[in-house]
């Protein structure tokens, strides 16, 4: 492997990207998915994390263009040059450009966008070309690659880790601050049959159950949840919150209390918050929400308030017309006021008091009734 002259690299581990425009060759969802998958390739072997922004200047700006496209390195029509990208840095640096005179495909019948994007994003992170023919960073496109068995070569891994090091112990997980130790188990009423929650949200593959000033943190890999003070992770967040949900492709968890909401990314409390819930398009008469969930596949966020819900379009960043609708009409069986909701394994889990309803969104019915603390293996 080689790196760019001077070995430029990002001096931070959280990188933003923005898909500036789309190729007409593929549905937008396919482009989004190919880029996400390409970033994941590098995320898995480094401490780097990526989140997508929809406006403004991102570290990595991704675009499709033909011929001369403003960087004095014109594309050449169909064939030969497929794409190019710039080493880490400000401005155009870090950006990846794809030649839209190619026929971009999800499979290998044309030019596979995922393979090219994974290569170009390697440049965006600081890798130059590799002379190893088996490496992703080899400059020549290999249409014979078996996509189902795609993996980085050791040369690619050595290259990127020479810049950023190896992944932290659990790259997806929220590290426990040094100032925060789990509270004593007896302080946690996690096995109480009357336990209810204020809010529940996923965060980087874990589930956080919020209650008063505390939260339980449950990884699917460990049977026992940790129990923490909210303030030990995020000093500015309120206690007794109303709702929380994660937007995974932005790596943000939104926290709601009263008519305000906050945003966190891992340990970081994002600037510019709290904001009014009315900036989301909720009616001015509404003073709080009960629960919320963002569905990644649909790119929609649902806000539950008493017996109604509103739906927010994450792509358009606006509330959808035709709402509110009755919860019970679209989520048959969910009849009580919702305290909290989150998604796992394709099901929605609605919490109401000490009860929990497992709802299958495809079958549109409640499939199990559980205790609210069923996730704690009491």
């Amino acid at each position, binding site marked *: 492997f*080689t790196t760019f002259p001077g070995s430029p690299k990002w001096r931070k581990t959280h990188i933003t990207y923005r898909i500036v425009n789309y190729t007409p060759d593929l549905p937008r969802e396919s482009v989004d998915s190919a880029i996400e998958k390409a970033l994941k390739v590098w995320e898995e072997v480094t401490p780097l994390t990526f989140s997508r922004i929809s406006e403004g200047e991102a570290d990595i700006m991704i675009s499709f263009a033909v011929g001369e496209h403003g960087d004095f390195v014109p594309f050449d029509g169909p064939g*030969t*040059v*497929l794409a*190019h*990208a710039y080493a880490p840095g400000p401005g155009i640096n870090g950006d990846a450009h794809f030649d839209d005179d190619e026929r971009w495909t999800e499979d290998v019948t044309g030019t596979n966008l995922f393979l090219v994007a994974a290569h170009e994003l390697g*440049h965006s992170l600081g890798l130059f070309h590799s002379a190893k*023919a088996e490496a992703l960073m080899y400059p*020549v496109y290999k249409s014979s690659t078996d996509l189902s068995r795609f993996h980085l070569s050791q040369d690619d891994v050595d290259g990127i880790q020479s810049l950023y090091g190896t992944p932290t112990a659990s790259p997806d997980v929220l590290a426990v601050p040094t100032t925060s130790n789990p509270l004593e188990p007896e302080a946690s009423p996690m096995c109480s049959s009357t336990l209810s929650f204020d809010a529940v949200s996923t965060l980087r593959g874990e589930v956080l159950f919020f209650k008063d000033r505390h939260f339980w943190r449950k990884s699917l890999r460990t049977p026992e949840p940790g129990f923490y003070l909210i303030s030990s992770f995020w000093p500015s967040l309120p206690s007794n919150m109303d709702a929380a949900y994660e937007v995974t492709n932005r790596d943000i968890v939104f926290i709601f209390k009263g008519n305000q909401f906050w945003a966190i990314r891992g340990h970081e409390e994002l600037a510019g918050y709290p904001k009014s819930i009315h900036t989301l398009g909720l009616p001015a008469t509404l003073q709080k929400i009960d629960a919320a969930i963002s569905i990644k596949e649909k790119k929609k966020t649902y806000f539950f308030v008493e017996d109604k819900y509103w739906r927010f379009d994450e792509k358009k960043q606006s509330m959808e017309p035709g709402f509110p609708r009755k919860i019970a009409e679209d989520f048959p069986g969910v009849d009580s006021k919702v305290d909290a909701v989150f998604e796992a394994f394709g099901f929605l889990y609605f919490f109401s008091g000490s009860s929990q309803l497992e709802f299958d969104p495809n079958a549109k019915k409640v499939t199990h009734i559980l205790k609210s603390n069923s996730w704690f293996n009491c």
Partner: protein
Amino acid sequence: YPLHDSARDDDAGMELLQKYLENYYGLAKDVKQFTKKKDSSPVVKKIQEMQKFLGLEMTGKLDSNTMELMHKPRCGVPDVGG
């Protein structure tokens, strides 16, 4: 006719080689001189550098394997640093 096509193919090949070496291997742009230089030591060295990098036999000549690889789609970022 065969002679004519062959000559034309040769010209096209040289043009591709020149552009390839200029774009990806830092060969100085010198259009008029390239034809004369094609057998010169700097050009041969650049061809060998390209062949070594791409995992080809280092013949220093524009052979069919080298031509084939140069025709394949690729990333536009140069293979060697400026």
